[in-house]
């Protein structure tokens, strides 16, 4: 194996000390969207159903619950956390950080860095890499990073079938305290206009089929391939893999093109039942995989964010997972907590009814 200078590897080994997921209770079946907008034509629906946040939920409340779960597993003193970073494209405030509220509520304030990330669906892994840098450089013992969204989709648009709510948070810390060691990361970023939302616009725009080959597949495949080559690994060396999942089909095809089997991506493939949680999509696949992984298992995670870029992570599970896994609700506990709603209730809950 030749050392790839483009890999992101801190000089001090780091890993995941604690992890937590969150998915809201409500579900909108894709066939409901089809009923309202395309006369019920239900063939080729991208997923079965998507999660919808309650009337009193937003990225701040969801980030807080995911972080509390991560802190329960990590069992670390909140006063030792030196950064709280959350990625999202649906932060409730345009100006005022989500991260300050989370930091205050978990007891990490005031001796802490806090900021919100934005890089479409890869803002969560962007925050994780920053946390690795902080811990790996010795600037802080622990840093919290996460990605969650209450994703927007224009009524009737293809995105409305999938734009969902949820995500995950991680306590990043020294490798010898970690339940999963992050061996290395590789990031692959270009200027690709596949999806965006301009300032003051409620809903994003996208390039339809342009979001596939030149955007999602190009970046995911390049990031995954280059990382695996640099690590001297092939798909069969990993026990599990999880990818950004804007629908059910894309991550399955990306996995197949990289040489992974359907069994390897099964625990992390959540988009069919919760939709696309945007900044949370790849990383909630990771929490769901960690919920079933065994010590020694190796995991490949590749995120994708429009604009565009991918972060690929090479992760190895340690013995510490077994003693920490059951200390908080698991990803599937939230998925099983399911109440189906119709399009009318969804329209109210997502603020799509003009009141003034």
């Amino acid at each position, binding site marked *: 194996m030749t050392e790839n200078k483009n890999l992101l590897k801190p000089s001090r080994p780091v890993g995941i000390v604690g992890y937590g997921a969150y998915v809201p209770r409500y579900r909108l079946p894709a066939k409901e969207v089809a009923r309202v907008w395309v006369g019920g034509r239900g063939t080729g629906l991208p997923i079965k159903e998507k999660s919808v946040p309650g009337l009193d*939920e937003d990225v701040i409340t969801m980030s807080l619950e995911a972080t509390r779960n991560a802190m329960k597993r990590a069992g670390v003193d909140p006063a030792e956390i030196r950064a709280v970073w959350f990625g999202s494209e649906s932060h409730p405030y345009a100006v005022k950080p989500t991260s300050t509220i989370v930091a205050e509520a978990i007891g990490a304030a005031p001796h802490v860095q806090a900021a919100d990330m934005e890089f479409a669906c890869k803002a969560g892994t962007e925050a994780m890499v920053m946390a690795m840098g902080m811990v790996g450089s010795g600037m802080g013992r622990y840093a919290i990073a996460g990605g969650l969204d209450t994703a927007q989709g224009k009524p009737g648009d293809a995105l409305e079938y999938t734009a969902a709510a949820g995500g995950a948070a991680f306590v990043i810390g020294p490798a010898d305290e970690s339940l999963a060691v992050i061996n290395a990361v590789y990031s692959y970023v270009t200027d690709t206009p596949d999806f965006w939302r301009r300032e003051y616009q409620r809903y994003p725009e996208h390039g339809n089929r342009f979001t596939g080959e030149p955007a999602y597949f190009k970046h995911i495949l390049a990031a995954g391939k280059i990382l695996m080559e640099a690590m001297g690994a092939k798909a069969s060396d990993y026990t599990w893999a999880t990818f950004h999942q804007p629908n059910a089909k894309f991550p399955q095809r990306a996995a197949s093109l990289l040489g992974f089997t359907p069994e390897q991506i099964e625990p992390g493939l959540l988009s069919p039942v919760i939709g696309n949680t945007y900044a949370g999509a790849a990383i909630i696949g990771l929490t769901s995989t960690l919920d079933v992984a065994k010590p020694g298992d190796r995991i490949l995670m590749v995120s994708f964010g429009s604009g565009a870029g991918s972060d690929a992570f090479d992760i190895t599970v340690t013995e510490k997972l077994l003693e920490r896994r059951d200390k908080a609700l698991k990803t599937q506990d939230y998925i099983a*907590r399911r*109440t189906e709603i119709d399009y009318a209730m969804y329209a109210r809950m997502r603020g799509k009814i003009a009141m003034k």
Partner: protein
Amino acid sequence: MEIARHWRLKEQRYNLTGTVCTKCGEKSFPPRRVCPKCGSETSAPFTFCGRGEVYSFTTIYEAPTGFNETAPYTVALVRLEEGLLVTAQLTDLGNDKPEIGMPVEMVTRRLRSDGDERGMLVYGYKFRPAVV
């Protein structure tokens, strides 16, 4: 605009943090400077575990100003594991009917906007049916 009040109350609202009397151990929520049991003026912060059960409840259909966005909603008296009664909204009921004795757990949720959609967002405790 009541930003100073919301800021002052954030600790108790985010985490259900009250006080414990350092003399007799009596726990209070909201926080009390003087112990209602022994009269001591020395107390320490105490964060309640957030688990409890519904003691009584009512459903609000005509909500006061600031709360109509989420109406109808259910307000409950929750008996915490530590023995205190706390008044709070129930959330995430889905299709569940609230019941006396229902096990609930604390979550931090958006309570309301301070004023209109330009005002600060106020977050605080609510209770949902215990997930597992």
